């Protein structure tokens, strides 16, 4: 399968990428690892006229500490995130989530910024970001803004990012030693979650239970009120609106959300 024709520019800097986006608007797309965008382009679900390659911008990759947060460059690849000693110590849930994306070859190419911008509600990293209560840092022609994970995702494959904004970094609170749980139910190797659950610090996030990664707020409230993990998990599917596909109907997804939430709360590491 061959993508439709496009022009290609390797961005020289973040500002260069932003100015090209501002010029070309919806006709342009950012390219980093390309592991969400290129499959869409090969299927002709996306046909941008210009690809702006930010994959070579070293200024956008790497992990640092800023006070009580980890700052992860948007073009940091999944394998580097999963293998980072810093991330494994300070935000082990995020490192684990990165290790669950696709397969080794995919993790060698795909980036955290790409996965979050793509905003597939079944994906690992959007769910992990919501569970951790992290945020994304967006840079556009008018400056830099930070958007919390809870308000970043708007719908299927849709975020609050403007067409002329570049995601430059991801921020997550440092959580060394805090117990966390992660459950991903799949039936095939290297697949997306049929349902996923990530839990840490009283927050519970669900993958593939609606148009965006969702908080299981009813279960969180039950937990805060003193319910047992099993008791809280009974509420995990409340307020969700899962879709149906060949893998699972809605009621089965709701059942999975309850079972996986119980497992995520009962089998915590950290």
């Amino acid at each position, binding site marked *: *399968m*061959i993508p439709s024709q496009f022009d290609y520019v390797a961005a020289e800097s973040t500002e260069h990428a932003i100015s090209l986006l501002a010029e070309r608007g919806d006709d342009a797309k950012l390219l980093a690892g390309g592991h969400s965008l290129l*499959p869409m382009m090969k299927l002709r679900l996306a046909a941008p006229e210009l690809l702006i390659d930010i994959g070579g911008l070293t200024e956008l990759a790497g992990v640092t500490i800023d006070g009580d947060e980890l700052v992860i460059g948007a073009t940091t690849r999944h394998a580097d995130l999963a293998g980072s000693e810093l991330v494994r110590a300070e935000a082990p849930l995020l490192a684990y989530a990165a290790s669950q994306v696709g*397969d080794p*070859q995919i993790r060698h190419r795909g980036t955290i910024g790409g996965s979050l911008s793509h905003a597939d509600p079944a994906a690992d990293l959007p769910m992990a970001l919501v569970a951790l209560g992290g945020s994304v840092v967006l840079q556009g022609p008018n400056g830099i803004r930070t958007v919390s994970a809870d308000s970043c995702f708007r719908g299927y494959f849709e975020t609050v990012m403007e067409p002329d904004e570049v995601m430059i970094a991801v921020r997550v609170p440092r959580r060394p030693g805090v117990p966390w749980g992660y459950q991903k139910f799949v039936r095939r190797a*290297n697949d997306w979650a049929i349902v996923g659950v990530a839990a840490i610090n009283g927050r519970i996030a669900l993958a593939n239970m609606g148009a965006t990664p969702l908080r299981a707020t009813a279960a969180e409230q039950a937990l805060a009120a003193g319910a047992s993990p099993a008791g809280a998990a009974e509420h995990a599917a409340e307020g969700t609106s899962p879709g149906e596909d060949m893998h699972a109907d809605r009621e089965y997804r709701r059942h999975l959300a309850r079972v996986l939430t119980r497992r995520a709360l009962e089998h915590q590491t950290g």
Partner: protein
Amino acid sequence: MTRIALTVNGEKRSDEVEPRLLLVHYLREVLGLRAANVGCDTTSCGACTVLLDGKSVKSCTVLAVQAAGHDVITAEGLAPAGELHPVQAAFRQNHGLQCGFCTPGMVMATVGLLSENPHPTEEQAREALEGNLCRCTGYHNIIRAVLAAADASTEVSA
């Protein structure tokens, strides 16, 4: 058209390519290196696996322009003509193939794995090949070959 310069199997290459040209098509059709196969063409089967800067990637989901300035190794580049790389030798010795279509990808994924983890357990080897599908389902001998290749590299370095 965009000019790309890169290294493939140790040789410097420079070519004019369409930006939409996939790396696997560049390797197969421009350079005539046919080891990397196009299987599923959807980043699932791993038959197109090559090493990009030493790391396994699926070349059906990389643009040739993204490889500019980088180092690509295909199965043709693993060993001098007429010789076998230890991983290739282990696949032959253990009959780690049936129809052979997935084999170049399996071999390249294995070379990538052993560079990161020279002594994988069987479970680690199976997980590391999660992105490579064998349509003959010949996985047992493939895993035997991976573990034998790891042992062979130990003997060489010992």
